[in-house]
């Protein structure tokens, strides 16, 4: 198959995802009917979303909780079936695939990282990373070899034989990332992968991802509710609210020119933070208290893990 490098890797056109729909087809133009359906408990989680992501680009979808980000990103590998609209990845129309084609497509064209990791508790790190290759039918020696390489890439060497429950959150997500990398698929989907982690670990994971991205040049769709994260990672981003993309652009464009009040609210904190460095707030206690030990800076995950041994 000829692949046009200049063509966007991912194209989404007029995507709708409606939960609790009674009749199978509905007319998105009929505003009145939509309003009536909404009153009867139908949820319009994604409404008429269109966007493109170029090869090697990091596209961030940002919005408050409940704005439909997870629903949208789950529609891309068809974990959820879109109600309406076209999704095309690498020139293949995901919306039209049957079950068999879909399984092959997922095995080769996409990989995903989840907020809650989704690791197999009864498999060790090595087997977890090799899991996608196993599903493809890659023979054991070959898949374990590739898994080892990916584990080194994410800085987890030495941890191959540990089980997920024995790892810290940051380390578990490194396993999640290694499992996705080993697929060597072009498209990487990440649904709030760092939202469950402590701020320092989160920062460190963002750095790791940027560093990896410089080596592997994936096309990444990254979901977050945090503008700082979006600005740090994203080449372009979209702000989502109640299922709609209210603004698309580079992080800088969005911070400089928020299109409405919703975006403005997201951006204002961030702008303050960037433009005027915050005055250090230091609290001087009136009475003398016992000296408290300084909070220890958390070491990077592998180091911290080494301590736990």
């Amino acid at each position, binding site marked *: 198959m000829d692949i046009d490098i200049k063509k966007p890797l991912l194209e989404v056109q007029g995507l709708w995802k409606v939960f609790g729909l009674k009749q199978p087809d509905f007319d998105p133009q009929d505003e009145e009917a939509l309003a009536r359906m909404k009153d009867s408990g139908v949820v319009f989680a994604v409404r008429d979303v269109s966007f493109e992501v170029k090869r090697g680009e990091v596209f961030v979808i940002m919005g408050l909780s409940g704005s439909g980000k997870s629903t949208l990103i789950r529609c891309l590998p068809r974990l959820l079936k879109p109600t309406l609209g076209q999704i095309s990845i690498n020139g293949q129309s995901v919306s039209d695939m049957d079950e068999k084609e879909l399984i092959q497509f997922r095995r080769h064209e996409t990989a995903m990282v989840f907020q809650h990791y989704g690791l*197999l508790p009864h498999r060790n790190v090595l087997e977890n990373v090799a899991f996608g290759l196993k599903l493809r039918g890659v023979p054991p020696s070959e898949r374990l070899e590739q898994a080892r390489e990916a584990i080194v890439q994410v800085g987890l060497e030495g941890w191959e034989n540990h089980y997920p429950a024995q790892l810290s959150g940051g380390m578990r997500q490194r396993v999640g990332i290694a499992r996705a990398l080993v697929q060597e698929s072009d498209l990487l*989907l990440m649904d709030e992968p760092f939202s469950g982690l402590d701020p320092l670990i989160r920062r460190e994971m963002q750095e790791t991802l940027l560093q990896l991205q410089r080596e592997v040049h994936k096309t990444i769709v990254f979901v977050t509710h945090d503008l700082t994260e979006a600005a740090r990672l994203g080449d372009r981003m979209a702000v989502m609210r109640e299922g709609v993309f209210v603004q698309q652009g580079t992080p800088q464009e969005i911070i400089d020119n928020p299109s409405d009040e919703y975006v403005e609210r997201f951006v204002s904190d961030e702008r303050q933070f960037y433009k005027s460095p915050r005055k250090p707030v230091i609290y001087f206690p009136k009475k003398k208290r016992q000296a408290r030990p300084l909070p220890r800076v958390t070491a990077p995950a592998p180091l911290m893990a080494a301590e736990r041994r």
Partner: protein
Amino acid sequence: MFPVDWQFHVAPYIQTFIKWLIVAWGPFFEGLSSLVLGVLLQIEAFLKWVPWWGWVTIVVILSWKLSHSLFKSILPGLLIMTIGMFGLWEVAMETLGIVIVAVLISLLVGIPTGIGMAVSERFNAIIMPLLDAMQTMPSLVYLIPALMLFGLGKVPGVIATVIYAVPPVIRLTNLGIRQVSRDVQEAAVVFGASRWQLMKEVRFPLAMPTIMAGINQTTMMALSMVVIASMIGAGGLGEEVLKATNRIDVGKGFEAGWAIVVLAIVIDRISQAAAQKWEPPKR
């Protein structure tokens, strides 16, 4: 008084149905019967072939491997020796044989049924009320169809025991598979797991601790049913209890009862400890 004219009995219809079964499916039941009997006799022969001290050693070693406690491994060994002291060793092995065969059949039937219920809502809706009925029915009732289809002896004893003991393993297989975390399943699907791979690689192994609990319950119920099954000639410890009851021999009754309790405790402990091995590692 309820009007006599209104009386209507289903009993004759059930009788007719069972008779029809015996005639129409006779060869099938005979074949099944001789198959079960063959397996049972083999297992029984093996259980009796291993000398008593062999079993005591096996129990002690197994308990040691699973508990690493001297007390918890010596005690079960001493306990099963009391069975021999009461002169009940041979009969106990007969009971154990029936329990083993009944549990094996229960797993063969129960685990696929449980999996079927977990993947198909319709199948679930059909089987669920059946299980409820099976578990509320007094266990003696199972003896009658088993008796009619297979006559007197060990095989109807095994069949009645299976009917009585199979519900827990079905229920817990179903429950265990349904309880598997959505997050993990979603991750497997997105990496391209087919339905079969999802079951084999994710749902079934993650349900294993729950399924093991079901197997444990099924085993315990089989052991308790074996006593009742002796009423249709299954033999074993149940028969000793029955004889003692008929003669109002409290002492003998206690000895046989004790032997059953010991078997139950030892099997329960060992199978529970074995089930723990299926839990994914924590620390």
